[in-house]
């Protein structure tokens, strides 16, 4: 039986869900087996959180609430991880890619 999870978070990043945050979110979503959708309300409309093109196209602005729903064995940890990523402001501080 597959598990379901839901959650929401306010996007505080200064420019909203633009290119770099979208890439980070998609990469994290893809690391889970669960099917994961995101949308602007608990009723959607939903887009596949693992699709970089669709996530970027939502153009979620700053201070918008982003809702997640997931279905699968790791649904709960997926939603928790995605919300934490956004709460950490997408780890936008200098990270490993600046050390090349």
């Amino acid at each position, binding site marked *: 039986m597959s598990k379901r999870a839901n959650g929401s978070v306010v996007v505080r990043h200064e420019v909203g869900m633009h*290119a*770099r945050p979208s*890439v980070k979110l*998609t*990469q994290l979503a*893809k*690391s889970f087996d669960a099917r994961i959708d995101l949308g602007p309300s608990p009723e959607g409309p939903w887009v596949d959180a*693992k*699709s*970089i*093109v669709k996530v970027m*196209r939502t153009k979620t602005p700053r201070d918008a609430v982003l809702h997640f729903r997931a279905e699968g064995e790791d649904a709960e940890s997926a939603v928790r991880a995605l919300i934490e990523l956004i709460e950490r402001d997408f780890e936008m501080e200098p990270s*490993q*890619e*600046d050390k*090349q």
Partner: protein
Amino acid sequence: MKNGNVGIVIVSHSADVARGTADMVRQMVGNSVPLAWCGGTKDGRLGTSIEAISAAIEAAWSDRGVAILVDLGGAETNSEMAVEMLSDARRDRVVVCNAPIVEGAVMAATEASAGSPLDQVRRTAEELRGA
């Protein structure tokens, strides 16, 4: 670095555009994707060369395949010729994406960084066109 990811090659007429696009991929997507770029002539003018494209494919080679992003005209035809010149074993594992070079490279690399197969990497880059 993960070894199992599809590689990305960026082919522009301009070395600055190719290098800048590669910078965007590195900074936005990270280092988990094999990446190479080429652009311009040896004496600093605009242009593309089959030789440079072949070297870039070699540099970004992955057994999972390589997706090439190009800008205009000659970049596409020269890339196709560079693919034609590959060995039989490699030719089927290289595709030229029908997508804008900068956006396509970032989208393709994001998809590749998740371990997706070549076909899906190309589809993600080309999905931009339906916008």
